[in-house]
Structures are given as C-alpha cells and as structure tokens.
C-alpha cells in the first residue's frame, strides 16, 4: 500500500458512514493482464449490482464497447466513416474487440447460454457493442446480484482515443460494463456511437492490472498496492464514486511519470479567488479547496513540457474548484500520449484525462500556442460535467460537452485576461464559437440524441459550441453572479447523480427566481435563430401643426412653423428577424452626448418608438453589450446618423500592407 492511498482510504471510511445513494450502485473487482505484443487483455471480473429503483428486473444489460472497433460495419464505424474515405485502421491487425468467455452467478449458475447481443438503437446486425443476459430470478428493489465473468479483448490501433500506438496503450471502454437500469423505463444501454461514449452508474472499482516490468501505468483512482513479480508488475488501483475506469500503460523508456500536487495556497490565483467570492457571494472559507495529488504521464521527448502541463492542470482545478465546488477525489492522472498516439489525446475518464503536447511547443514562437492549456482546461472541465455530474451523453450530449465548452471558454478567457500563462493573443473562444455558428448553413437544434444529428460536424457544433454560446447568452440575460450561483447549485445538487436537462433548468429557475423555460426551450430544443435588427430611423421636425385652423367660425392659416427652434421627432423601429423570442436592450445616443437605454420584450415582430428630442439621434445599438451571444448576424444591429469611415480602417488596417507583403515575396523570383 502506498502513502498516496491514504486520502482514498480516509475518504472511503467517511463515505461508508453516509446514506447509500446513486453513487453506490455497482461494484467492480477486475483482474486484468496486458499482453503488450499482441495488444490483448485477459481478465476476470466480479460485479455486484444493486437495484436502487422501485422496479424489479430480471435482466442485465452490458456495454461491450471495444467491439465498436471490430470491423467497418459496426455502428460506430459506419457513423464515423459516413461519406468519407477515412481509414480507421492501418492494417488487418488493427481491429479491436472484446469477448465474454464465462459468465455466471456467484452460486455457479452459468449465464453464458442466456447472454445475447442486442441492437436497441439501429438494429445493425454487425454491431456487437451491447449485450443482455436473462437472470434466473429477478433482482428486487433494494437487493443485489453478484456475477463473475471472464473476458478477453484486443485493443485496436488507436481510434478515437482508445487502443494502442506502438507500445503505448490507452485502455478505455475495455471491460464489460453494465448499463443503467432506470426502473419502469427499463435498461438504458445504447450501442456505441461515433459521437458519444458514456452513461453508466456510479460505483466503486478495484482493478488489478499486470503489465511487463519497467512499464509505467496511469489509471483512474489511486494506486493502493504494487508488487514486483519475476517479469511483470502487478498494480492495484481503487476508485470510488466513479462511473468508469480507464488506464494506460507504456514502457518506462517511452513515458515518464512526473509526480506533482495541487496546493491551493500556492495554485489558486488570488484574483480568481476574489472574483469567485464576489460572484458567488461566498466567503474564502466556503471556497477553500483541498490539496490533491497530480500524476502526469508524459513522453520522455516532452519532459520539457511537464511543468506547463502540470501548471495547466492546476489552473484548471483552481478554476473549476472555485466555481463548481472542490474536486472530490484525492488524485487526478494526466496522460499526454506520445505523438503516434495523439488520437488518444483530449479525452476524459473519471479522475484521468488525456491531453496532447508536442516537442514543437518547446520552441518559440510555437511555445505560445495555447494547445496544451485549451485541451487540459476542457478535459478537467469534464471531471465535473460528466465525471461528478453523470449525465447521459447518448441522449443529452450537450449536458456534458456544452457545459464543459462554456466553462473552457470562460477559463481560457480568464487565463488570458489575467496573464497567467504567456500565450499568443488570439481570438477568444467566444468569438471562435460564434464564427462557427455563423458559418453553419442551417438553424441547429441542440437537444437531440447524439447520433441523430445531420453529421458529426453538426453534432459538434450543436453540443459543444452552440450550447456554450447559448449559456453565454443566458449569462448575459440573468447576470454573471446569478448565472454562476445557478451553475454551482446545479453541480452541488447533481453531484454523483444522473442529471438531466430539467435539473439544470430547475437549478437556474430556483436560484434566479425567474421562469427561464422559454429560454431553454428555444435555445436548445428548437432550431430557431436569434436575429435583431434596426429597421429604420427617421427624423422629423415637430414644429407644430401646419395648414388651416378653425377659429371664430372661419378658416385661418396657421402660418409657417418655426423649424429652427422646434424639437425633433425621432422614430426608431426595431425588428426581430429571427424566430427566437426574448427581451432585448437598445441603446440610443444623441448628438449632445446623452444616452438612453430602452428594453423591448421582443414578443412582436417589430416595435416603434417615437421620441422628442432637441438633438438628433446619432446612434442606435440593439443589444449593445452582445448579451445575446447566440446572435451571429449582427451587421444590422447598428445604425449611425453619419456612417463612420474610420471603422473600416480600424478593422482592415492590415489588409493593404499584408497583400503587398505577399507581392514582396514574389518579386525576387521573377
């Protein structure tokens, strides 16, 4: 047992005294051996599953996700390759699979004859990623069933973050894992799709892995035991309150282990702590974060980047810890795959993330690329939105990817604003996401099952970027403080639970006190666009009536109006071109420098305001602060009395010189 296991043990003892909740449904004890030459796994597994619902069930459903990489005909591969000539594996030895060779109850009842594959999503007969087994007797509410099984598996060449690249093995989605029993709705156990990976119950894992000697291993949880054998090494890892377990292994000559820690006193930027206190209305004591271990596995060729990788991890843990609550585990393992295995980079597993680096990042000016930081922040974000809050990534993928992308943009903006890492001044994540949205040719609906989008591009745009931008809009509407409090409340309430969209909406409505259903409905569940517009502005002199007037029983000429001294009547028309209905603010500026702010509920298609003013209106801005980040067609949001030529120069000051620079490089060849 290592010292590192101490916090885990203490944590386990503390938790043991608490009530049984959604976080203690499954218990896995797995023993597995890696054959590094054949890239095979051979394992046995003891699983205890407790029925926490009020409905009995007489079957168990299993994920067998390595089978997604068995051929070009699996559902995953078909979706991944759709319309493209992408070659998933380089050779015939690159396919991956898993096979259950023994399955029985602990009393010895053989269940293998009752084990059959299921295709609940698309009926694809070539897909073997889900299986079900009939139990001889139902598992009643509150009772448990315990099984033992043996399995063998082959890891694919790395496809989408699982597999091997040479001697580097990233082992995710590798063992037969139970789906989620949802009571009267039955088992929720989807096939493996190109655009989603996760939905499983929280529980505890004790995993014993055997690898060749002089190999390094990174895994979910913490290492609690280590034994050196004759030509191998046996390591035991334990993880509680997690819903998956992943590990990686590589020769010591390829990957190095760098130990580190997160020390809040040192690693939390004071400016962030102050900001969090103000925003959340909490004391410094409320925001105190616990120290924890960091374990980095990095290619030896990238050791020079280790400090930067650890620093990114620490900053991420500080950001998420302050805003969404302390990271609830004693350790986080960070894996930077070697360059051949970069497809394994940028992935989240409970208490283990994979990032990506390159030696190029050690050389100026490439060293200022924010590559490491962006990936690390995103994956650490998933420790919350996916890890701690276990939403269903198949049915509501935006709940983890979108919330994480939102937090990533916010965190990266804070890192840049506060100058915590010297990075190139680049477009912010918000600008980038809005550009992406603006380029997409169709309105996008976010809240769909992951594989029902038009293609993977639309899936990514909707679940990652549109959701993030929608949340940014919500932040603009409810205010930064109320938004942050609602998000924190959502995480605290849904900690170690399966959260749904309704839980997020409920958290926002309770914290803000507002009815926000209209926003979530339109932003996420309908394909409507936000688009405001200044339809027109007119100035007329309000010099009084003209023509004749009836005085003393006869018509009399009113005379010429005194236009010089009269007021302007200004007519402003604002329109809603998009289908998204909501309130918007409008800023009006006058020639004397006066500014007026007006709100419009946006219920109709247009509104008209008539103002009296001694001065002409010089400027109109609809949504001047850009609170509606979802709006990407903003060119008609502005109106000026006198168009300002300097704006074009300000935006394109570089154009002429840059073009001439191109020409400059052409001349000497001629």
């Amino acid at each position, binding site marked *: 047992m290592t010292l590192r296991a101490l916090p885990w043990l203490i944590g386990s003892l503390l938790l043991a005294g608490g009530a049984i909740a959604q976080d203690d449904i499954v218990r896995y004890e797995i023993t597995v051996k890696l054959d590094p030459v054949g890239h095979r796994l051979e394992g046995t597994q003891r699983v205890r599953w407790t029925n926490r619902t009020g409905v009995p069930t007489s079957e168990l459903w299993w994920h067998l996700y390595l089978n997604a990489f068995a051929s070009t005909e699996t559902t995953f591969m078909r979706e991944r390759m759709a319309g493209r000539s992408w070659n998933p594996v*380089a050779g015939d030895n690159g396919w991956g699979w898993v096979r259950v060779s023994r399955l029985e109850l602990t009393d010895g009842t053989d269940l293998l004859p009752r084990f059959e594959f299921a295709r609940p999503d698309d009926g694809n007969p070539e897909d073997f990623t889900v299986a079900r087994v009939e139990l001889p007797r139902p598992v009643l509410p509150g009772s448990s069933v315990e099984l033992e099984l043996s399995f063998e598996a082959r890891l694919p060449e790395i496809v989408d973050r699982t597999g091997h*690249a040479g001697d580097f093995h990233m082992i995710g989605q590798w063992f037969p894992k139970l789906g989620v029993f949802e009571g009267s709705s039955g088992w929720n156990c989807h096939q493996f799709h190109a655009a989603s990976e996760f939905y499983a119950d929280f529980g505890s894992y004790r995993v014993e892995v055997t690898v060749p000697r002089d190999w390094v291993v990174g895994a979910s949880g913490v290492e609690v035991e280590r034994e050196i054998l004759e030509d191998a090494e046996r390591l035991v890892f334990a993880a509680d309150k997690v819903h998956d377990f992943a590990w990686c292994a590589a020769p010591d000559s390829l990957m190095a282990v760098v130990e580190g820690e997160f020390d809040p006193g040192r690693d939390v930027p004071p400016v962030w702590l102050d900001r969090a206190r103000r925003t959340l209305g909490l004391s410094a004591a409320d925001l105190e974060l616990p120290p924890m271990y960091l374990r980095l596995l990095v*290619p030896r*060729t*990238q050791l020079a980047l280790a400090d930067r990788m650890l620093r990114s991890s620490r900053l991420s843990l500080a950001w998420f810890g302050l805003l969404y609550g302390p990271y609830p585990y004693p350790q986080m393992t960070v894996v930077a795959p*070697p*360059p*051949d295995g*970069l497809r394994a980079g940028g992935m989240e597993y409970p208490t283990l993330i994979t990032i990506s680096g*390159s*030696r*190029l990042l050690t*050389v100026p000016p490439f060293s200022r690329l924010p590559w490491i930081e962006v990936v690390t922040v995103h994956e650490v974000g998933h420790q919350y939105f996916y890890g701690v809050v276990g939403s269903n990534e198949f049915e509501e993928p935006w709940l983890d990817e979108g919330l994480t992308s939102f937090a990533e943009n916010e965190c990266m903006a804070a890192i840049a604003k506060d100058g915590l890492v010297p990075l190139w001044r680049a*477009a*912010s994540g*918000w*600008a980038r996401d*809005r*550009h992406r949205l*603006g*380029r997409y040719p169709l309105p996008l609906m976010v809240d769909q099952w992951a594989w029902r989008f038009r293609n993977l591009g639309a899936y990514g745009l909707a679940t990652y970027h549109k959701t993030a931008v929608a949340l940014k809009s919500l932040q603009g509407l409810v205010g930064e403080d109320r938004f942050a409090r609602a998000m924190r409340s959502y995480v605290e309430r849904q900690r170690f639970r399966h959260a749904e969209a309704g839980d997020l909406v409920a958290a926002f409505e309770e914290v803000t006190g507002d009815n926000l259903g209209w926003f979530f409905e339109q932003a996420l569940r309908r394909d409507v666009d936000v688009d405001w517009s200044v339809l027109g502005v007119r100035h007329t002199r309000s010099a009084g009536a003209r023509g004749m007037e009836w005085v003393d029983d006869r018509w009399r000429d009113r005379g010429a109006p005194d236009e010089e001294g009269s007021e302007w009547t200004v007519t402003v028309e604002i329109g809603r071109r998009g289908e998204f209905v909501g309130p918007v603010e409008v800023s009006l*500026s006058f020639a004397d420098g006066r500014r007026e702010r007006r709100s419009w509920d946006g219920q109709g298609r247009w509104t008209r305001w008539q103002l009296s003013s001694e001065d002409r209106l010089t*400027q109109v*801005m609809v949504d*001047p602060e*850009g609170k509606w*980040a979802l709006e*990407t067609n*903003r*060119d*008609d949001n*502005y*109106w*000026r009395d006198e*168009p*300002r*030529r*300097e*704006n*074009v*120069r*300000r*935006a*394109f*000051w*570089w*154009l*002429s*010189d*840059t*073009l*001439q*620079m191109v*020409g*400059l490089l*052409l*001349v*000497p*060849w*001629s």
Partner: protein
Amino acid sequence: MKGSLLARRPSPRWGVRHAARLWRLVVACWVVSVLSFLPAVWVVDGAVSPALENLPDAELGVPDGEVQLIARGALREVVAPLRLAVLSGVFTLWMWTVLWHAGVVNWTLWAGGRRVRLGELLGLGVVSWWRYALLSLLSAGAAIGAGVALLLPFEMAGEKSYPALVEQHLVPLLAMGVAGVVVVWVVWATTARAAWLIGLPERRSVVVAWLLGLAGTLRVPLTSLGTVALWALPAVLISSVPLAVGVEFPALREGLAIPLLGQLAAAVRAFCWVGLFASFAPVTGLVGNEPDLEHDSP
C-alpha cells in the same frame, strides 16, 4: 572565360547607383505594387463598409469578436471576386516584374546606359519578356524541388504521422527550416545572376543561364548571398513596420499614420528590389567592375 564569368561578383554599391539612376522605374514599381492589389482592397471595402460603418466609435466598444463576425459574414458574399482580385494582383505584379527585369538588362547592356524614358525601357523588356518569364518559372520550380528534396528523407523515414515526425526529428527539422531560408536566398541570387547572363551576346538558353547563375552563386557565395541579404532584409523589415505599429498601437489603426507608413515602406521596398536586381549587373563583366564587399575565394 567561363571561369572568370562565374567568379564575377555582384556589387551592392553599383546597385544603389543604378537604382538611383532608375528612379522613375522605382516610382513605377511602387505604384504598380500598390495598384496591383487595389481591386482586392476595393472588393473587401465594398463588402464590409455598409456594415462596419455603422459600428460605434472605438471608445464605446463592441462585444468580443463582433467586428470579425460582421466582416466575415460580409466577406462570405464576395469570396469568388476576392479570390480573383488577389490572384490577378499577384499575376499583375509578376508580369510587371518580369517586364522591368528584362527591360533593365537590355537597357543596361545594349543601350549603354544612355538616358531612357520609362516607356522605352519597358519596350526593351517586352522584346525578351518570355525568356525572363521562363526564368522566373524555372527558379520557382527549383525552389519547390529543393524544398521537396529537403523533406524527402523525413517522408521516407517511415513515421506514421507528422506529429511523430516533428517529435522524432525536431532539431533536424528546425535546421532544415534554416537551410530552407538559405536555399531560398541561393535561388534568389541565382535567378538575379542568371537574368543578367541571359542578356549577354552569347544568347544562352534560360536553363544554361540559370545553371551558370547557380554555379556563380556557389563560386562566390558570400558576396552573392550577402548582396541578397543586404537588400532583402531591410526590405522585409521596413515592410513589417506598418503591421508592427498597428499591432502594438491599436489607437493608430483608424488614422492615416499606418497607410502613410505603408506607402513609405512600399517605396523603400521598390527601391530595394530595383537595387537588388541591379547589383547583379556586374556579373556580366560589361558594367560596374569596381570591387565591392569582401572577396570570396574562387
């Protein structure tokens, strides 16, 4: 004879004098370099002006990324004309450069350097324009070939991916980057040298002239590459000034300072290019035989 031809050195000093004499050409180069890309600037301006001109004053500010968002939206509508305008600008500049290169060689070698009008000089260029165009394409091809040759060993090394390539061979790759710059300079020097050799009475073929140019460059590398560096570095640096000023001082972007700096840079650049090209005239042995720079070993 050939040995002495290869050993002749370019003379930056002669280049300065010759460029000063050809001040009308320098002005013309400046004007053409600006005019070539004017259509592209107009296309961009026409597309974005209606939207951007309504944005508020700088001090009022706009949301993050707003200007880019609006500009990109506007530019999406003019992608095809913009591409055409940029390509036509590049093509115009290339045709023009080939023309004045040919004209300057013919005027220097055959008109004895007598006073000449710009039109007359360009007329002299028209006569052999195609040979110089061929030389230009040849030099571009040579540079591409050299680049491929530099990368070929890495391509054949058997790595599976470019990230792996970078990881395994970072230092050699960076060295190759430096070597690539040297190769570019060698090709520049070779092309300028060959352009002057084409004009000699022997009427060599373009390929032979280019090979002789290469041999001459390699025979006196320090002087040849030094001459290129002496002209190219100031040209590149001065051209970067307006962009650097704009990046560092955003407040200046709206005013006329940057466009004026840009025009100044364009003028200096034009002088540098004419001077660079003229510096190689002495390799013909017909003009400018006074010694310059340090001597390379033959």
